[in-house]
């Protein structure tokens, strides 16, 4: 089967061929799900958000004009959903409860190393949750999704300068939290002082 570009697939979806939406789902659901999970730190909410993003993509397909990348548009929808979820949710006390349970184990590592990695990620996840949603969004899209600050600005609806400020503030907080020797049994990051 001919490989269609994102734009070509979206054109088909816009014309009512919703069966092609499954191809877009297969291309982007992994990135969307991981972004939503790290943003919300709640796998159920991330699953709901992932599904909702692609349903909205079908419903509002005609609003995609192709002047931005499809990934940017999808992350835009995802970020909006995640912000809404955080606004509505009253489950902040639940945050952090599932990291150790859900991380996939790497078969090439020893059980001890896997446990250590899980603990490390839990610390990063906790640190990420201490950021403001705006800072977290900027860091996740930049660090994990490789989006440019201009694209993040488009998604967040702010200036590029504001995105850079958010990233800077976020990095200051993360550095402090992750290098604090009191926050763990060992100094986790070997940062030169």
């Amino acid at each position, binding site marked *: 089967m001919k490989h269609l570009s994102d734009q070509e697939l979206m054109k088909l979806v816009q014309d009512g061929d919703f069966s092609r939406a499954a191809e877009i789902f297969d291309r982007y659901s992994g990135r969307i799900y991981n972004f939503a999970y790290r943003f919300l730190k709640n*796998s159920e909410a991330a699953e709901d958000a992932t599904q909702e993003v692609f349903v909205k993509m079908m419903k509002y397909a005609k609003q995609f004009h192709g002047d931005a990348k499809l990934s940017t548009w999808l992350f835009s929808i995802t970020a909006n959903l995640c912000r809404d979820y955080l606004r509505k949710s009253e489950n902040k006390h639940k945050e952090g409860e599932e990291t150790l349970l859900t991380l996939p184990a790497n078969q090439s590592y020893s059980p001890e190393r896997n446990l250590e990695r899980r603990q490390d990620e839990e610390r990063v996840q906790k640190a990420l949750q201490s950021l403001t949603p705006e800072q977290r969004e900027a860091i996740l899209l930049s660090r994990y999704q490789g989006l440019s600050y201009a694209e993040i600005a488009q998604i967040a609806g702010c200036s590029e300068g504001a995105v850079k400020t958010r990233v800077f503030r976020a*990095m200051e907080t993360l550095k402090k939290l992750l290098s604090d020797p009191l926050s763990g049994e060992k100094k986790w990051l070997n940062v030169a002082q």
Partner: protein
Amino acid sequence: MAECSAVRERMPELLVESLTPGLREEAHQHIEDCAECGSEWSGFRATWIAMEDFPERTVPPRVRAAFLQQIDALTPKPVVVPFRQRGFFRPLAQAAAVVILVGGSFVAGQRISAPDPLPGNPAVVDSVQLIPIAENRIIRASQVNPDIQGSPDIQNVRFLEVPDKNNEVGIAFDLKSHVTVTGRRDDPSVINLLSYVMQNREHTTQARSSAIQWVQDNYTSTGDADPEIVKALANVLKNDTHEGVRIKAVETLKSLPGTLAPEARAALIDALKNDPNPAVRIKAVDALANLAQAGAPMDAATVDTLRAKASQDDENLYVRVKAAEALNQINL
């Protein structure tokens, strides 16, 4: 200090390596020379790298499955129109409507008595009030799409002989209007309509049973039975909830001309093995014994089932005897 502030502002861009080569070189030069900025940058860099080493989670398959359901739900469904008329039927239908209208007017005119003439006024009827007449359509089977789409709610099914046309039948029913489909017995539309009526459990037991009986009465002398009819009867035998209807299906299968089709034989074997009602099993073993008696070749599945039934201790005695007789007929 002003330079420190400028370099720190650029650290986010340094992290993602989006600075121009000149600015990048300038920033790194300052970081090497300034201990405070160097420490800040080292911390940023180490944190940034440390955040990388985490595996991506796989999207749970249920999310994809749920999304596929959503695609299905959002996809516009085609409007199902049962009994699509072929193109050339439209003028015919319009002509029929005109005939009904004129006929209706005539009937209405006959039924309305003229008013008593008023003194001095001639007896004039200004207008004729039309009596609404339910639409009654007679459609040739050849003008009906053989594929019955959806599950049209057809009621009051009756079977008719068409006068002066020996080989033609009529199937009358109510859909939105009263409809009679007429055509040759072997017309695909007639066959499919019959199959539909026999299998549709929305109809009453009596209606299904009557339809099967009608098939038995009308399709036993028309050469080999139509495969669609056989298939419908086999489905009835396998799936109908009423034992009386299933018995009627066995009897009809048994009465159909020609070699019993594999589907029909499989349905009979299945009924003999699995039907919960002994009367149905008796009819099924009877039908298979008849086949054996008529010299029809018996396949291994039929023989195995007959053997099993003949020796099954807890089976109805009549079934066991009939199974043994059938085996005897084929010298086994």
